[in-house]
């Protein structure tokens, strides 16, 4: 459903992981609301079509940027590019993430390293570079996508839940450190959202998990994008260091 409130007109935004699921929904929602968006993905060329479509449809500018969020030099290059082209950065959405389930005893070193490299270390790196630009303009909104399992934990997700728990604590620390510069930092913890990533656990487990949702349905990526839109916009200008659960009352 479209929701054109023009809440982000002329705001410059960087969104990571835009090629599918929640990232793609946030990209569309922010474009609808007039944002100028640097849309990132790892696979070169994958956002070219949607970027052109959204740019034309909403008369804004969607600029695809292709890099691996684990590459700190690439993050610096993107920050320099944004600074050069617009001299400002109003919002970042740290959405790119990986999920690999593993029972205790089966969590490999590689799984731990990869998960934390993408879900945690990259987020810290991006915040570090984004904050340089935001400090100069004395404003900004940083939105980190965590997960309900980062709050409550979940069997079979010791590594993933730890990484998403880290996202919550780094959000709170960054909010404290950046508040004097009027930079807000918040996190969203999605519950069970109808994405490829979530469905990768298999239909039986998906159905089991839906029974744990108070509203008895999965959330949609658009419902996460709505929360992100609120946090990116000036409607939330006095809100920082918060975790917003978007989970339809899920019990884990």
């Amino acid at each position, binding site marked *: 459903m479209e929701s054109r409130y023009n809440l982000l007109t002329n705001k410059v935004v960087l969104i990571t992981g835009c090629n599918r699921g929640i990232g793609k929904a946030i990209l569309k929602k922010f474009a609808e609301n007039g944002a100028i968006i640097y849309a990132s993905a790892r696979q070169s060329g994958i956002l070219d079509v949607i970027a052109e479509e959204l740019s034309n449809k909403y008369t804004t500018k969607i600029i695809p940027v292709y890099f691996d969020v684990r590459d*700190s*030099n690439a993050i*610096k290059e993107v920050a*320099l590019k944004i600074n050069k082209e617009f001299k400002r950065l109003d919002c970042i959405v740290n959405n790119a993430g990986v999920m690999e389930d593993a029972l205790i005893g089966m969590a490999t070193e590689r799984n731990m390293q990869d998960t934390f490299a993408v879900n945690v270390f990259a987020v810290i*790196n991006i915040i570090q*570079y984004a904050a*340089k630009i935001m400090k*100069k303009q004395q404003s900004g909104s940083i939105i980190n996508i965590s997960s309900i399992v980062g709050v409550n934990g979940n069997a079979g997700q010791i590594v993933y839940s730890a990484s998403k728990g880290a996202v919550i604590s780094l959000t709170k620390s960054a909010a404290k450190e950046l508040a004097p510069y009027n930079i807000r930092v918040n996190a969203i913890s999605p519950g069970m959202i109808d994405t490829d990533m979530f469905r990768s656990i298999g239909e039986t487990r998906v159905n089991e998990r839906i029974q744990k949702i108070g509203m008895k349905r999965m959330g949609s990526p658009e419902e996460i994008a709505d929360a992100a839109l609120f946090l990116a916009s000036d409607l939330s200008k006095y809100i920082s260091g918060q975790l917003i659960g978007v989970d339809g009352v899920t019990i884990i």
Partner: protein
Amino acid sequence: MNNIKKYKKIFIETFNAKENEVCQLTYQSTPEWDSVGHMNLITALEENFDLMFETDDIVDFNSYEKGIEILRKNGIEI
């Protein structure tokens, strides 16, 4: 203003230092150059020299002299 004068001026203004002392300054040698002062220095240098330091450079930047070396590494003629 040439780059070395600009560099020195940033140190003087950030740390409220005297001009004849500034070349000897090292990280935490003065109460003003603490971690918060350090980040203020980095922000001022990035703004004035139109660059972005890498995290390792920010950590290694522990003296007035070292800062010159790091600026040169980042393509600033100083």
